[in-house]
């Protein structure tokens, strides 16, 4: 073997270096049209519309020769998300799936961006004196996507179906209705004879399970093995909403088109869409999603991770926006058992935390200070009250409180969190550990999945749990109504781990739930909130936000308190 050696060990290094150099050649400056197909090109050219005229668009022009891609061509909005979930309003419990369902289906009522209830498929409704009988007047002239008319029989069919199908979540219909509940008065009037008074029925109807599906379509697609067409409904849809489902390919893409026969919507609610087509493209890897966004092949990226914020902010043509959502990150602990039955210890923990630094480091600025356990944006508004901000960052005060507590020499506790629940938790858990150690509390940080974390909380005396609470519907009952009412569910089923069994407070929460007087409800929530903060039952950290990265030719992007993107209002220039 006399071949001269080339120091071959260097080869792989050279290869990788070459690729790294290529990869590091700065950000994509001028995204030229992608070579793959017509739409990739169209999307790219639309994203950089000033350069369209100068750039040859090979694939697109081959088929549709147009000088002006903006006029006449269908406008497609491409949104990157990480998973597709289902489009079945009955059975879907995830917020990602709710977004799909929101486009094609409607309920009798809807919610505007501020949290007010608006008419939708019902034009008006009135309860009886005792809130046990409700009359709904239905909208005339509305057709389902399969062409059949929407009417009282459709409402009856859907609401009675709710009693038959398993695996539904959210909403309380099954607790108030039986098979005699729905009475069809005429084609456009229904009366609900409930089994108990239900003052907040219209609010409950915001849960996606109340969506009205075409009965004809459901029956046509039922089989003996699947009499309620549940499996078929997971990837097919027929509603009355502003978009029609064109194609649902699981974990690949979900395609919607504008419903040309849409009834038009109510001001402030769903509306006739501004774009012709919406595609949810599933991109699991956040780095890959960012590459697609920067190349102009994707218009909007849902929830980019905090690590990308800095880079995205500095990318020309890309905008970053965070919407305040009813979502609180907080610390919870078992206040009925040692060590956290000691209020001084709880207050010491609260004073030990540098809230501003935590939000900056963990959420990179996309978070808002939070005092009390009622976030902004709920229907019963408990206004941000400075008197609830009882525990500013003050390590000296924390040390002093600790020395006055039953644990003057400090204490060792577990600190658990579920990384999947919030991207910033990883960093925040480490920070919390260091804040606590500065005042003399040793925290053993454990990452768990949320089910394991909830199970540990249900056992009690679990130390500190870094947790996040979301509203299913934006009503105050979804925050204090759960968090201050430990008895609302059996302990082993509850996600509320405070064990704060204050009978008066729990009764107040039940009263607030049953009340229809906003002022009365607000007063009850405010009082409970103040008491909980004085006793440091929970330690709120911040109010969260939902972040989107998008092309700056997109206008009208709004994420409502209802945690849905108002896709019908989005304009793509």
């Amino acid at each position, binding site marked *: 073997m006399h071949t001269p050696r*080339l120091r071959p060990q260097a080869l792989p290094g050279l290869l990788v270096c070459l690729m790294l150099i290529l990869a590091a050649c700065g950000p994509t400056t001028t995204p030229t049209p992608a070579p793959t197909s017509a739409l990739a090109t169209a999307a790219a050219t639309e994203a950089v519309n000033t350069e369209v005229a100068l750039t040859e668009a090979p694939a697109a022009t081959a088929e549709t020769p147009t000088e002006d891609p903006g006029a006449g061509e269908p406008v497609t909005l491409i949104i990157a998300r990480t*998973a597709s979930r289902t489009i079945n309003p009955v059975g879907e*419990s995830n917020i990602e799936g709710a977004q799909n369902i929101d486009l094609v289906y409607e309920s009798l009522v809807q919610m505007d961006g501020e949290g007010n209830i608006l008419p939708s498929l019902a034009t008006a409704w009135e309860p009886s004196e005792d809130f046990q009988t409700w009359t709904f007047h239905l909208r005339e002239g509305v057709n389902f996507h399969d062409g059949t008319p929407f009417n009282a029989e459709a409402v009856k069919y859907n609401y009675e179906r709710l009693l038959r199908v398993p695996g539904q979540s959210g909403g309380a219909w099954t607790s108030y209705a039986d098979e005699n509940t729905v009475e069809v008065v005429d084609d456009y009037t229904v009366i609900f004879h409930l089994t108990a008074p239900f003052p907040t029925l219209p609010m409950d109807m915001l849960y996606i399970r109340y969506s009205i599906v075409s009965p004809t379509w459901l029956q046509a697609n039922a089989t003996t093995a699947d009499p309620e067409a549940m499996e078929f409904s997971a990837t097919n849809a027929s509603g009355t909403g502003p978009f029609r489902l064109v194609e649902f390919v699981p974990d690949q893409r979900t395609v919607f088109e504008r419903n040309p026969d849409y009834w038009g919507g109510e001001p402030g609610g769903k509306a006739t869409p501004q774009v012709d087509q919406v595609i949810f*493209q599933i991109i699991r890897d956040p780095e890959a999603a960012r590459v697609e966004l920067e190349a102009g092949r994707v218009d909007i990226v849902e929830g980019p991770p905090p690590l990308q914020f800095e880079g995205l902010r500095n990318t020309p043509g890309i905008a970053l926006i965070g919407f305040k959502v009813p979502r609180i990150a907080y610390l919870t602990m078992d206040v009925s058992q040692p060590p956290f039955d000691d209020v001084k210890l709880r207050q010491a923990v609260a004073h030990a935390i540098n809230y501003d630094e935590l939000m900056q480091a963990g959420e990179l600025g996309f978070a808002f200070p939070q005092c009390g356990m009622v976030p902004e944006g709920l229907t019963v508004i408990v206004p941000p009250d400075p008197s609830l901000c009882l525990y500013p960052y003050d390590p000296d005060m924390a040390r002093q409180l600790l020395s006055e507590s039953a644990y003057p020499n400090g204490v060792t506790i577990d600190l658990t969190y579920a990384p999947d629940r919030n991207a910033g938790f990883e960093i925040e858990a480490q920070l919390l550990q260091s804040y606590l150690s500065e005042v003399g509390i040793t925290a053993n940080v454990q990452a768990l999945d949320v089910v394991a974390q909830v199970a540990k909380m249900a056992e009690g005396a679990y130390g500190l749990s870094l947790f996040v609470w979301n509203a299913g519907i934006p009503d105050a009952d979804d925050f204090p109504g759960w968090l201050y009412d430990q008895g609302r569910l059996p302990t082993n089923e509850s996600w509320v781990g405070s064990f704060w069994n204050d009978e008066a407070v729990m009764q107040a929460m039940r009263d607030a739930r049953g009340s229809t007087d906003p002022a009365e409800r607000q007063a009850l929530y405010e009082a409970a909130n103040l008491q909980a903060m004085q006793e440091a039952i929970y330690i709120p950290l911040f109010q969260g936000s939902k972040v989107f990265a998008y092309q700056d030719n997109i206008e009208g992007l709004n994420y409502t308190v209802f945690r849905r993107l108002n896709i019908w209002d989005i304009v793509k220039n």
Partner: protein
Amino acid sequence: MKRLTFVLRRLLLLAFVLPAVSLITFTISRVIPGDPVALMAGPTANPTTRAQLREAWGLDQPLAVQYLIYMQRVAQGDLGQSFRSGRSVTTDFITYIPATVELATAALLLGTPFAVLGGVTAAVRRDTAWDYLVRTVIGLGISLPVFWFGVLLIIVFSAQLEWLPALGRLTVDTPIPPTITGLYTVDALLTGNFNTLRDALLHLVLPAFSLAITVVAPIGRITRTSMISALQQDYVRTAYAKGAPPRRAVYVHALRNALLPVITSIGLAYGLLLGGAVVTETVFSWPGLGFYVANSILSLDFQPVISFTLLSALVYVGINTLVDIFYSVLDPRV
């Protein structure tokens, strides 16, 4: 007769291995702390809903009963329900498997010729620069993390050079061909849909390449080792001695004998690939089995995970049994 006993014994073993695998995965998935209903229903579902869910999913039964019910259903071809997709796991598998088969086949077709050719030539020119090159590429293939290398490929070839698409099976507006096999390339070809075919092929390049480099590396290594030992055999020396041209000595006499373990390793690599390449499929958003199972794990959607594990075990044990039987046919000493 002896061979028949051997085969029967292997099949009997199979009958024990599969229930054992299912029992272990089932138990693990159910004894980890936490209640799947808590996740399905969310924090604010009422007790009625929870009870309904628990009953619908059979979670109100004792663990042993749950397992028996599950195995009974599996025997009837019912792999359970996925609450994430809202469909039966069988339907989901049918949806996701073709993507994995397509990617695995492409990766194997792309990588195997290079691996075998590289391994053979490296063995023939042992300790030359070429041999070192092949060995370093093999080393890289084994050690490069896909989550890094895949993203690097995307950045270079998709974002910077814009030569190739990086995500999914088709561009978002390319129509999906009518389902015949579920493999987009094959279906597009069969239906004469050449734009889709081109798009599907382009989408295959990066994930297949990234998968090929990791999976064919072991094939290259085995080829090289097996070839080196074959080249040292007496019959090769004899071939040379009787004046056979070196090409014939290498490619006919040595290679034919060296190929047996190579073919085995190709078979095993294919089996491995069919199990779904979780990381590659995730990086390239390739909606195959690996992607499906990774998402199921993240959503704590147990049914698909258990059934997938069972299926993988079946494929693995099946391939191993086939290989064993194949060996017993070729080598009477087994």
